[in-house]
C-alpha cells in the first residue's frame, strides 16, 4: 500500500515544476504560438520527462501514484502539447524503441467503430491504437477531421477506428493521469485565488480579509485535498463498477476549485485574457476523457472487477 508518492517522485515533481515554471511563466495560455509549443516540447524531451513512466534499465519503474505526482505538476502549468499521452503510451509499450522527442497519443473506443484521440493535431504525433486482437498499430487522423477544441489545453478528435479496445489497466491509467492533471489545475487555481484575494482591495481592505471569501477559499482547499485522496485511492485500488462514482467525484471537486477561483477574481475572472477559463475548460475536458475511457469498459461488461495495482 502506497499512501504518498515516493521521495524520489516528490523530488522529481519539484524539479519538473521548476522547469515548467520556466517554460510557461504566464500560467495557462490559449494563444500560444506554434513555435513556442515546439520549443516547449523539445525542452521536455531534452530533460527526458516523457520517459518518466517507463521502467529503467534495472527494471524499476515509478508506480502509478509516483507518475501522477509528475502529471499533477504538469497540470499546474499545462500547455497544449501531448505530454501526458506520451508518458502513458511509453509506459504501455515499454521496450518499443522510440526517440524521446516522439510525441505520442492513443485511442479510446467510443461506441462501434469510433474512437477519441487527445491532441490529434500536434505536429508529428504518432497515434497508437490497441486492437482487440492485442496488436498495436499506428493510425492517422484524416485531414479535415473535426477537432473539439472546447478544452484549449487538450483538443480531442473523434475518428473512425474499428476493432479498438482499451484494457482495464489502461483505463485506470487514463483516469488516474487525467485526475492527477485536474488536481494540478485545481492546485494552481487555488494558489491564484489566494494570491488575488491577498492583493485585491475593496472597501479599503484585501477581499481575502472578508470571511465570506476566506471560507470559500477554505472549501476549495478541502475539495482539492479530498480530490487528491480520491486520486491516491484510484491509483492504488483501481476502478470497479462500484467505484466509478469516486472518479466522477474527484473531477467534480477539482472543477469546483476552478469555479471558486473565477468567483474570487470577480469580473476579471470572467475575461478571456485572465485565462482562468483555460483551467476550467481543461478540468471539464479531462473529466470527459476519463468518462469515455470508463464508458468503454464499465458501460457494457458485467464481469469487471477491481484491477489491483499491486506495486
Amino acid at each position: 500500500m502506497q499512501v504518498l508518492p515516493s521521495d524520489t517522485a516528490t523530488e522529481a515533481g519539484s524539479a519538473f515544476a521548476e522547469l515548467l515554471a520556466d517554460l510557461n511563466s504566464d500560467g495557462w495560455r490559449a494563444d500560444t504560438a506554434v513555435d513556442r509549443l515546439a520549443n516547449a516540447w523539445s525542452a521536455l524531451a531534452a530533460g527526458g520527462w516523457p520517459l518518466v513512466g517507463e521502467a529503467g534499465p534495472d527494471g524499476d519503474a515509478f508506480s502509478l501514484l509516483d507518475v501522477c505526482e509528475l502529471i499533477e505538476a504538469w497540470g499546474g502549468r499545462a500547455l497544449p502539447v501531448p505530454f501526458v499521452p506520451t508518458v502513458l503510451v511509453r509506459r504501455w509499450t515499454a521496450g518499443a524503441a522510440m526517440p524521446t522527442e516522439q510525441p505520442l497519443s492513443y485511442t479510446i473506443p467510443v461506441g462501434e467503430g469510433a474512437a477519441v484521440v487527445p491532441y490529434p493535431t500536434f505536429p508529428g504525433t504518432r497515434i497508437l491504437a490497441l486492437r482487440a486482437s492485442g496488436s498495436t498499430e499506428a493510425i492517422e487522423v484524416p485531414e479535415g477531421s473535426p477537432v473539439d477544441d472546447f478544452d484549449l489545453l487538450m483538443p480531442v478528435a473523434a475518428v473512425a477506428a474499428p476493432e479498438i479496445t482499451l484494457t482495464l489497466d489502461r483505463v485506470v491509467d487514463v483516469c488516474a493521469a487525467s485526475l492527477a492533471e485536474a488536481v494540478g489545475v485545481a492546485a494552481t487555481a487555488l494558489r491564484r485565488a489566494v494570491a488575488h484575494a491577498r492583493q485585491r482591495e475593496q472597501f479599503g481592505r484585501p477581499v481575502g480579509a472578508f470571511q465570506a471569501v476566506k471560507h470559500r477559499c477554505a472549501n476549495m482547499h478541502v475539495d482539492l485535498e479530498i480530490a487528491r485522496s480520491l486520486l491516491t485511492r484510484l491509483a492504488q485500488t483501481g476502478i470497479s463498477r462500484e467505484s466509478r462514482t469516486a472518479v466522477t467525484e474527484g473531477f467534480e471537486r477539482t472543477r469546483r476549485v476552478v469555479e471558486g477561483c473565477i468567483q474570487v477574481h470577480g469580473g476579471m475572472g470572467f475575461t478571456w485574457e485572465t485565462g482562468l477559463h483555460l483551467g476550467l475548460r481543461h478540468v471539464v475536458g479531462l473529466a470527459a476523457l476519463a468518462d469515455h475511457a470508463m464508458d468503454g469498459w464499465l458501460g457494457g461488461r458485467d464481469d469487471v472487477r477491481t484491477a489491483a495495482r499491486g506495486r
Partner: protein
Amino acid sequence: MTTSFGSPEARAFRERLRTWLAGNVPEAWRRAGGEDLTDDEVVEVRREWDRRLFAAGYAGVTWPVEFGGRGFGPVEEYVFYEECARAGAPEGLGRVGRLLAGPTLIAHGTDEQRARYLRPILSGEEIWCQGFSEPGAGSDLAAVRTRAGRDGAVYRVSGQKTWTSFAHYADWCLLLALTGPAELRHRNLSMLIVDMHAPGVTVRPIRQISGRSEFNEVFFDDVEVPVANRIGAEDDGWRVAMTVLTNERGMAEAANRYVDLMADSRQLLECAGHRPSRIGGDTLGGVEVYADRVEALRWQVMRAVEKSARGGDWFPSMAVLKLYWSELMQDMASAGLGLGCAEHASWWRRRYLESRATTIYSGTSEIQRNIIAERVLGLPK
C-alpha cells in the same frame, strides 16, 4: 516506529492487534455497541476495557516508553484506532487521560506530577475530564472566566465549565483557569489539576437536542487546589493548552468516524432498497456516492498521518479532516432521513439530531475554515 502504512512493521502490528481484539472485545458490546445494556453495565464494560488495554500494553500507545507507553508513531497510532473501531471495541473511560491529560503532564508536568498521575491514567484506575470550555468561552477559548485566586499554598477556584465529558466518573479535571488580570489575554491562564471529589465541585448533566445526556456542566464553588497541582508556570496555561490541542489527538476521532461512517453508508444502501452486490442501476437515489466519500476520508487521514510521520506539521491537516468528516456525517444523516425507510426511520432521526453536534464541538466548522484560510492558505486576519 514506522513511517509508512505499507511497511512490514505496520502490517505485522495490524495483524497482532486484530488477533488481540478478536479475543478481547466483549461479545455483548460487539453485537449492539452497548445498546441493550443498562447504564451501570455500560460503565463497567468501559472500565474493564481500560484495564484490558493496560494489561495488553495498548494503553498510551504513543506515550514515550520511559513513561509506560509504547513510543509508537502516528502510523501505528492510526492503525490502532482504526482496528479498535473496526472490531467494535468500546471507548474506555480513560480516553481524556490517555489523549489529553497524560500528554500534557509528559510535556509540561514536574517529575512529582508525572510519578503521581501517569500510571493510574494508563491502568484506568483514575479517570480524567477536560475543563476548558465555558458558557462564555466556546470558540473564543481564551476568554475563560473561571477564576483561580492565589491564597497561600492553594488556589481558590470558582466558576463554571461546560461540555465536560466523563465529569460524573472523573477523579481529576484538567482545568484551564484565570490566574492573571482579564486584560492580559493569553498570558493570564493557568493549567490546574483539580480533584473532582473535593468540596465545592458540582456536576450536572446537560440534556441534548436528542434527549440524551452525554456531557455535563461542572460548577466550582471556592474549591481549594494546591499550588503544587499547577502544570507549567503560573499564567502560562494557554501555551500548555495549545501544545495538546494542536497535537494529533484529532486522528483518533477521524479514525473512529471513518468506521462509523462506513456503517452508515452500508445502512444507506440497505435503506435505499439495494444490497451492495446489486448496485448498478440508477435507483439508489445517489446514496452510493457516500461510500466513496467515506473511503476518501480514510485516504485523507492516511495521507495526513504519513506526512506527519515524515516530519510534516499535523495541524493544517486536522482542520481539513474535522471539517470533512463532520459535514459528511450530517449529509449522510440527512440522506438517511430522506430515504423514508420505515424500519430504520427512528434510527436515522436520532442520528440526524445527534449529528448537529459534529460541526460544533472540537472547533466549529466556521473556526476550522478560518484556520484553513489564515494558517494554511495565508489569507489576512
